[in-house]
């Protein structure tokens, strides 16, 4: 499983990072780093929750 990041839509709410700091990394401005995120086995549910927490719909789940 991967998390697809639409960096253009990220507005720095950082709700993903608040829920799952182990999955998401923020830049110095507090915005998610660009590029897909590979979800380690066992963290799929957390990845789903963090993805659904994005007010901008900048995150989505995909297959690696």
């Amino acid at each position: 499983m991967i998390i697809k990041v639409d960096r253009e839509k990220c507005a720095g709410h950082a709700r993903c990072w608040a829920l799952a700091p182990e999955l998401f990394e923020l830049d110095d401005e507090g915005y998610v780093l660009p590029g897909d995120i590979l979800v380690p086995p066992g963290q799929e549910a957390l990845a789903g929750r963090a993805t659904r927490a994005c007010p901008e719909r900048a995150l989505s789940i995909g297959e690696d």
Partner: protein
Amino acid sequence: MASQPKVPDHVPAHCVGAFNLYKSPEMRPTPFGDPFAAVAKLLDGPSVFYSPETTRDGQGAWIVTTAEEQRNVLQDGASYSSFRRIFSSAIGEDWPVIPLELDPPEHGKYRSMLNPLLSPKRVAALEPFVTAKAVELIEGLKARGTSAEVMTEFAFPLAVSVFLAFLGIPDDRLMEFVGWANELLHMGPAERTAAAHKVLNFLEGMIAQRKEEPAEDFMTFLVQAQVEGRPLTDQEIRSIAVLLFIGGLDTVATAIGLDLYFLARNPDRQQELRDNPAIMPSAVEEMLRAFPSVTPIRTATRDMDLGGCPIKKGDLVSCPSMASSRDPAEFPDPNTIDFNREDNRHTAFSYGPHRCLGSHLARREIIIALNEWFARIPPFRIKEGTAPVTFGGFVFGVENLVLDWS
């Protein structure tokens, strides 16, 4: 006989709605009111409708109710411009507050400069100050008795002193600043103009002083900051300082007040937080969703269709956060306040590039305020014989909130 409010020719009659953010019954000051429930009812109707005289200065605007359509508007700075001159027009000048009244890409260069100062990681450094201030204020009002008007004795002094500390402004004139904010945000044109002059004169004095004597604060950061490889102009500095000053004065205190207003009337929900203090961050997010206070407004830059309505270039488009945050398509059972709500992508801090710059500081402050309140104050209620007054309009809120824990 009252004259009919004016509706522009291009607005079809079936697109005109009866609701008004300022004048509808629950939007006016109301004892024990619930303006949020009144706005939530809009979700039973169309996703977009036209409301005559629904801005502070009596202009008509399209009101967008659903989360999806608000996202479409607020994420699209090319079609929906933030270009307004609310502050400067009050003093007969013409400049944007930065970055709020700028559009991308101009907006982005200032935003990138400011974002690091208020990132989630950076605001963590302010927590000890916030906590100490909250404890001092609560212990102070506890020492004075078993009831308090918490807006003036707790919420405002806390929010404003944190913000003044961030900006580098001493808090010995704290309540004077709160008065200015009230005049700017909640009163008529004459008071607004006078207050705008007072804010600007004060900030200009601060800016001049920090140029002479740099300190470790936001004002010093501004006078030393670079954008596109050059220092900020004096006009840019005052435009940013004004926004930060106003932004920090009202909304955080309002959020704390609205949360305490809800909790005071719902002892079982207080108990829920006392039984399980660990849910406070999630409870605060949920109360931000249920009781947000701000309505972003944009100006259409072209003719277009929105939610089946014909928007014309130049029309105002209003996106009340208290509507989208109660959208059943986005939040199951939206009028139930669930402290453990999942997928809480609420709109209290707006959508898109103008997402509230201070949002991470704001949510930390609210969490700390409520944590310290619950740690120190036993079960509380609205003091008998008093009536808190809620209001809608430019920034929703509550006043005369006298809590009793005797």
